């Protein structure tokens, strides 16, 4: 955490420089969003409401209520059990404090599912300097998670399987390059440490998921996954924003990622924003690729072959490509009653997932499957993501 300590030192020095008003608190606004994800026989829908209100000239508070209604009949679920429905609710309460060129924020998030509880507290600080052309940020978050599992034959009874402690360390730096361009750099280290409960053997894995073993062309069997108890990941990102001469903007980003499980990933993103009258149109492209974890295989040779064994498609080698657009219509731009302005927004993204070493085991294991075990075709699917929301500034 050397980089984190450096940033604390530099940030402390910057705060002691003496300040004048420059940074600003976030806008007072309310957003009400409906979201929908549909892909790989998984549907997730629900609302998200975000309210932000100033308490004084220096303080602002925000509250977010978010819900996922999940219906899943994905391949993992079909092979390992039966389709299910569940609900996840997440609530976040946050406070922002502004002092001169320094902004601090503190937030608490609680996420509840019938088989997963998560509590996270997060702190961040941001400091403008060098004539407000440079900004340094840093943050720390600590999460406590309790993982449960549905006890068979009774859909309403759950048993604790593991507890997970998570710590996030973030630093960032952004710089105004010209009157039309900015650059930003970010770094985040995340650590997880899990402890099994009730002799479950579950650590950082999903208790419902299985690894597979057998003889290709002959047999495929399944057993509970075995994960390490710890994981540490590092990610670095670079972002550029450019304002075009005809009042439009381009955003580009790259992220490098590596973790202690042997996964390496890169993702690239490019978006274009174009206002036309009362409308703002966004077009975006994103490409993601990752290598597999050291302990991942689509099919192992035999049960308990290694200490750690996994077959999650999220740990396999794959790419995903996203294309999306958004349209926002601004209304009451000159104010209306207590409203300063508002916008109606619609957003659509299509994501194609293409797995390189995760086979569609349903082709041999599900009813009607005709493929040979271990020789099934590699899996791919498209997911559609839809958002519709209204925003009111007041």
């Amino acid at each position: 955490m050397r980089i984190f300590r450096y940033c604390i030192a530099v940030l402390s020095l910057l705060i002691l420089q003496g300040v004048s008003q420059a940074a600003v608190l976030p806008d007072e606004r309310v957003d009400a969003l409906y979201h929908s994800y549909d892909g790989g026989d998984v549907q997730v829908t629900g609302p998200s409401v975000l309210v932000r209100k100033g308490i004084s000239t220096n303080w602002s508070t925000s509250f977010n209520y978010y819900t996922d209604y999940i219906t899943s009949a994905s391949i993992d679920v079909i092979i390992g059990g039966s389709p299910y429905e569940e609900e996840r609710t997440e609530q976040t309460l946050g406070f922002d404090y502004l002092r001169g060129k320094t902004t601090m924020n503190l937030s608490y998030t609680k996420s509840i599912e019938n088989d997963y509880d998560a509590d996270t507290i997060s702190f961040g600080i941001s400091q403008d300097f060098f004539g407000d052309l440079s900004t340094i940020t840093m943050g720390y978050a600590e999460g406590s998670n309790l993982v449960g599992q549905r006890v068979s034959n009774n859909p309403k009874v759950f048993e604790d399987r593991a507890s997970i402690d998570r710590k996030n360390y973030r630093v960032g730096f952004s710089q105004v390059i010209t009157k039309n361009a900015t650059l930003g750099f970010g770094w985040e280290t995340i650590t997880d440490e899990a402890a099994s409960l009730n002799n479950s053997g579950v650590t950082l894995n999903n208790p419902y998921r299985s690894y597979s073993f057998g003889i290709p062309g002959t047999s495929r069997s399944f057993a509970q996954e075995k994960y390490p108890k710890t994981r540490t990941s590092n990610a670095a990102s670079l972002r550029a924003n450019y304002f075009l001469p005809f009042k439009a903007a381009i955003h580009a980003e790259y992220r490098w990622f590596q973790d202690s499980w042997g996964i390496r990933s890169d993702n690239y993103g490019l978006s274009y924003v174009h206002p036309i009258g009362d409308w703002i149109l966004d077009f975006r492209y994103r490409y993601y690729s990752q290598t597999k974890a050291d302990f991942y295989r689509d099919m192992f040779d035999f049960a308990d072959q290694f200490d750690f064994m996994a077959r999650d498609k999220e740990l396999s080698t794959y790419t995903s490509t996203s294309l999306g657009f958004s349209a926002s219509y601004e209304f009451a731009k000159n104010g209306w009653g207590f409203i300063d302005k508002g916008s109606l927004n619609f957003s659509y993204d299509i994501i194609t997932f293409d797995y390189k070493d995760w086979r569609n085991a349903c082709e041999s294991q599900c009813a009607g499957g005709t493929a040979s075990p271990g020789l099934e075709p590699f899996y791919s699917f498209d997911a559609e993501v839809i958002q519709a929301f209204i925003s009111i500034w007041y």
Partner: protein
Amino acid sequence: MRNMSLALCLASLVMTGCSSLEPWVKPYERANLADPIMNPARDAVSAGYLHHVYETRESARGAGTVSGGGCGCN
């Protein structure tokens, strides 16, 4: 500790010693930078949701425009 001292010295130099290095974009030249379209996460509720969509389906995590944490995602 030695590296920490170096970092502090460097920061001090940037803020005091290098007085010839002036901010090159004046406050009155920042209208374009302040335009909301220059913020890739200008709608926090939407940016947060898309972040969640990717976070739950990819192994990579962190260093995004939106802070993560708090997701059960079992």
